[in-house]
């Protein structure tokens, strides 16, 4: 893996930052001031769900408890996303300063990074970095000499299960259980790790925090759109010349994204990984923003040579494998959808049955217990709808090998 930090440019996360500065500024402010700036910034969670960070932190700050936790969600398992890997390697100062500021703001003494098992290679550099922070009194007891400001960070390595990125499954996993999503409510901000108030935040979300504390919410809002403030880190892969992470303001169009990454003859773009939707060429003027195409940042580019049915099959195999099996719509539903794809591949389908499968997909979206089963039908539905010409000529001696 290449470290390209010196070449990266961006308005917020990839801008200049001196390690520790966010913490030094935060301790001159009151908790209320920090919460105000975050509220003013309108920062939304970058892990995919887009929940306002200030709301989560206000609830966590208001919860009365002797123990609270900040969890950094570094389980990044959505196909096509690798931004958190880059942030952990190249910008650990932002991730950890963000966690310390979170601890100060909500009154937590402990932070836990849930690092996906596949990223164990990052463990050593991250632990070295944490030690450096302790040596500089940016972590540990009486941070920056402030009495009663104690906060430390532990890294917990997962054992590979995509669903553990879902925050309640993640907490189950931390507690030594199978990573099965819990019913919500109660939410983790009230009843989280070890039943204590817990704020789970994505790596990228935490990276925004030091910059907001230093420059204010108003500055943050200068970037992006009305509803989608700030920037987003996009992980772009697939058929393009420069697959990489890019920091761009929310509101950037797909067309612009394709140009920047050197994509040519593009037929379709998958937004938000396997659980997202597939957008055809006719819609490349659409904007990446909560108002139009929301995304956790996974962007996969397909050129004209790709067979979209094969793409869909790869996604459905992923979900069949990763469903935790706890609830029926998701456990059985994903199998049925994959069977449907196999039937189309073999030319053994009826449109009546496929329509039933689309209905099943819609049922899964409402009846599944967690986001995995609620979103796994997205690609099935969007690919069949947007590429039906291609897919259903496939069996009539179409051009797809």
């Amino acid at each position, binding site marked *: *893996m*290449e470290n390209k930090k010196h070449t990266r440019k961006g308005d917020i996360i990839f801008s200049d930052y001196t390690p520790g500065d966010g913490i030094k500024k935060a301790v001159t402010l009151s908790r209320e001031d920090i919460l105000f700036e975050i509220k003013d910034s309108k920062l939304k969670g970058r892990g995919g769900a887009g929940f306002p960070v200030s709301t989560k932190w206000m609830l966590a700050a208001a919860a009365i408890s002797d123990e609270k936790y900040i969890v950094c969600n570094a389980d*990044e*398992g*959505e*196909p*096509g*996303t*690798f931004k*958190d*890997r880059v942030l952990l390697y190249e910008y650990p100062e932002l991730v950890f300063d963000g966690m310390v500021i979170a601890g100060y703001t909500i009154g937590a003494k402990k932070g836990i990074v849930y690092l*996906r*098992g*596949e*990223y*164990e*290679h990052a463990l050593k550099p991250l632990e070295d970095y944490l030690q450096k922070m302790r040596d500089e009194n940016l972590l540990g007891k009486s941070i920056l000499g402030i009495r009663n400001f104690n906060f430390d960070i532990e890294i*917990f*390595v*997962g*054992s*590979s*299960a*995509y669903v553990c990125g879902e925050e309640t499954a993640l907490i189950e*996993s*931390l*507690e*030594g*259980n*199978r*990573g099965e999503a819990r019913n919500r409510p109660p939410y983790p901000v009230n009843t989280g790790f*070890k039943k204590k108030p817990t704020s789970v935040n994505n790596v990228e979300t935490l990276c925004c925090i030091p910059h907001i504390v230093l420059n204010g919410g108003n500055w943050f809002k200068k970037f992006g759109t009305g509803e989608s403030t700030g920037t987003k880190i996009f*992980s*772009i*892969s*697939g*058929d393009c010349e420069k*697959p*990489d*992470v890019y920091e761009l303001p929310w509101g950037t169009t797909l067309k612009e994204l394709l140009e920047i990454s050197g994509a040519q003859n593009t037929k379709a773009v*998958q937004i938000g990984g*396997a659980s997202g939707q597939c957008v055809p060429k006719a819609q490349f003027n659409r904007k990446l923003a909560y108002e139009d195409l929301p995304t956790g940042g996974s962007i*996969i580019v*397909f050129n004209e040579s*790709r067979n979209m049915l094969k*793409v869909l099959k*790869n*996604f459905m195999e*992923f979900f069949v*494998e*990763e469903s*935790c099996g706890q609830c029926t719509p998701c456990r059985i539903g994903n199998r049925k959808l994959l069977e449907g794809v196999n039937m189309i591949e073999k030319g053994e389908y009826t449109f009546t049955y496929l329509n039933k499968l689309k209905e099943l997909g819609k049922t899964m979206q409402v009846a599944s217990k967690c986001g995995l089963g609620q979103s796994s039908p997205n690609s099935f539905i969007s690919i069949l709808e947007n590429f039906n010409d291609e897919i259903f000529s496939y069996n009539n001696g179409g051009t797809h090998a």
Partner: protein
Amino acid sequence: MLVSEKTSLTEEIELLVQKYGNDRSSLLKILQDVQKNHRYISEFAQQEIARLLKIHPVEVYSVVSFYAFLNSKPKGRNIVRICRTITCDMKNKEAIAKAVERELGIKMGETTKDKKFTIEYANCLGLCDEGPAMAINERVYTKLTPEKAVEYLNSVK
């Protein structure tokens, strides 16, 4: 398993329980260390962990069976995982898998006779910008060609 092996495994687990604490939340850390040391978590190890954490052995088994990186059946000393997810698939992960299969004379999911390697498919390794990607134990290898993949395998002791 020999009696002496059993005693040493028990001792090893006792040390792990001391290190991480006998709270339920230590379970994954203990399992991960046993997995790392032995490349699998035997039924006996699971029973000992359950005994020392004061939980039912079925609880331990249900956790082991849930996570892709934990297993209750013996595997090779080196576990090779080739990413099969979309971007690596588009970058011809198939050719990588075939080359590795041919070189080792086994199929995906199998272990070599000398127990040196187990090869399997994995879901997205988060290296999609540098695919096709593969991991050998904790180390990752990117921008593979079939030839390079085999070279990396051969460099493993």
